[in-house]
């Protein structure tokens, strides 16, 4: 008897998609080491010039900026998402649970453009925040929040919150509450219980959420482009400019290769840094 019925039927379509994806990634690699011929879409011969050009301050700075923005975004997202995920998994009220779930998950499905646009109205010179601050007499002139990396980070935190809440809530809901009850019966206070039991046990969720937030932010384009307005250069905005304004696809390809390598490296580093903690939590 065939112990693996339909194996070929079930795997081949997925295999075809994988082949297409691999071919696309190889195309990026291939273009990244080709020479750019201005004015055409044709590419020249083999060259390392694209990668060498990235050492120029303009591009090096964009990489540094991007990593910094991603890191700050992930930190703020974690700080804001943790209390929400905690409330979501610990509340006894079904209505409150549903409310928190819908409110925190809906933005995930709104897409980057809608969410970025709404932040443009919040942060603009005639926007909501500035009007509020002026009316309250806290500032005399509108604060410049558009076209700053602070504004970009605020919007990106909003964009990455839902996925972080989902990942933290998944981790928190799988913690055996008996550990906390045992600590409480032994006389530990709520802060001590949280710091020594709940927080370490939720570490896998924190690591997963943090690295996903990092990767998503790295991939974000509409937010830095529209809120940064060209004044906050990130890897994604540079790639778009190079690809569609100057049609320098080889250089755009080499930037996305480095972007990919950098985001994978950071995620691997995060996983490695957290693994002793995860072992402590008894999971792998």
């Amino acid at each position, binding site marked *: 008897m065939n112990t693996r019925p339909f194996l070929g039927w079930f795997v081949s*379509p997925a295999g075809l998609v*994988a082949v297409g994806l691999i071919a696309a990634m190889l195309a990026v690699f291939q273009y990244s080491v080709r020479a750019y011929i201005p004015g055409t879409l044709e590419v020249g011969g083999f060259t390392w010039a694209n990668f060498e050009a990235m050492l120029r301050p303009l591009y090096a700075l964009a990489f540094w900026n991007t990593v910094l923005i991603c890191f700050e975004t992930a930190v703020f997202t974690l700080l804001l998402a943790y209390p929400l995920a905690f409330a*979501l998994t610990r509340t006894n009220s079904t209505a409150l649970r549903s409310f928190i*779930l*819908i409110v925190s998950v809906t933005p995930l499905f709104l897409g980057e453009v809608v969410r970025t*646009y709404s932040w443009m109205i919040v942060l603009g010179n*005639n926007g909501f925040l500035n009007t509020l601050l002026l009316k309250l007499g806290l500032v005399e002139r509108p604060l410049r929040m558009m076209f700053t990396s602070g504004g970009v980070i605020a919007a990106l935190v909003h964009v990455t919150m839902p996925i972080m809440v989902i990942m933290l809530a998944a981790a928190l809901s799988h913690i055996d509450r008996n550990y906390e009850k045992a600590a409480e019966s032994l006389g530990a206070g709520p802060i001590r219980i949280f710091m020594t039991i709940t927080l370490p046990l939720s570490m896998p969720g924190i690591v997963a959420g943090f690295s996903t937030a990092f990767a998503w932010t790295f991939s974000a384009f509409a937010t830095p482009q529209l809120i940064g307005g060209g004044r906050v250069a990130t890897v994604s905005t540079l790639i778009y400019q190079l690809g569609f304004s100057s049609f320098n*696809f080889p250089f755009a390809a080499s930037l996305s290769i480095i*972007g990919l390598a950098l985001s994978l490296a950071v995620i691997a580093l995060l996983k490695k840094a957290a693994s002793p903690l995860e072992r402590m939590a008894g999971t792998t």
Partner: protein
Amino acid sequence: MKRSPVTLALRWSGRVLVAAILLFVLLPGVVVAISAFNDRAILQFPPQSWSLRWFYRAFSYADFAKGFWNGLTVTVWASSIAVVVGSAFAFAIHRYKFALRDFLEGILLSPLVIPHYTVGLGILILASQTGIERGFPLVIFAHVVMVLPFVMRSTYISLENLDTRLELAASSLGATPLRILFTVTIPLLIPGLLSGWLFAAILSFNEFTATLFVSSQATQTLPVAMYNYVREFADPTLAALSVIYIVVTATLLTIANSFLGLGKILNVDAH
């Protein structure tokens, strides 16, 4: 149980904190909703006079209508293909060991961490090298690649919760594998497949970065049309469109929550 003052203080400050964070999440939506009804073409707070004209413009602007239908075409094709391909593959990795299993799984899950612009640029370059037209199949392929991990995850979780004794019972009564698949396994997986399709559809309809690279004037989806609009105009039309978007999405999610249990789909329910 008696509560100490510390516990009570923590409890109340926790509530205030959660309320403040929820406010942060809700703020942009509320601000957009208010400005959508602003009568003037310049964004301003609070609006001086009110009107519905931006809603009319959002519906009558040709690029949005075209983007909506393009997006719907891409979404229906991409999420349907992804559900068939992704759940079949999830079934295979859940049940069988085979050559290149982990490799294939890693490749197909990689779009979760590969920046979308890299995927978009790669597919664009591949198309121009092989002479493939920048038509709908190209956009649909890009979307299938990007939603596949979510569909695989959804089916995989359903398979974990599937009681295999039902399949064994069918088998012992003499049912062929094909009959078991269609009368036992697939019917039991329907909720997981449906929620996977819904997830894929919503993500595909909203995908922007990769679509910007692989779509052309003729195939641009709604998010791309919206992006082009913000760059050209500063009036509140997009705010009106955003309000429609938010209302439709929140309604769909509330329905999904009451019928399917959003907590279960997202795996955040306590066990």
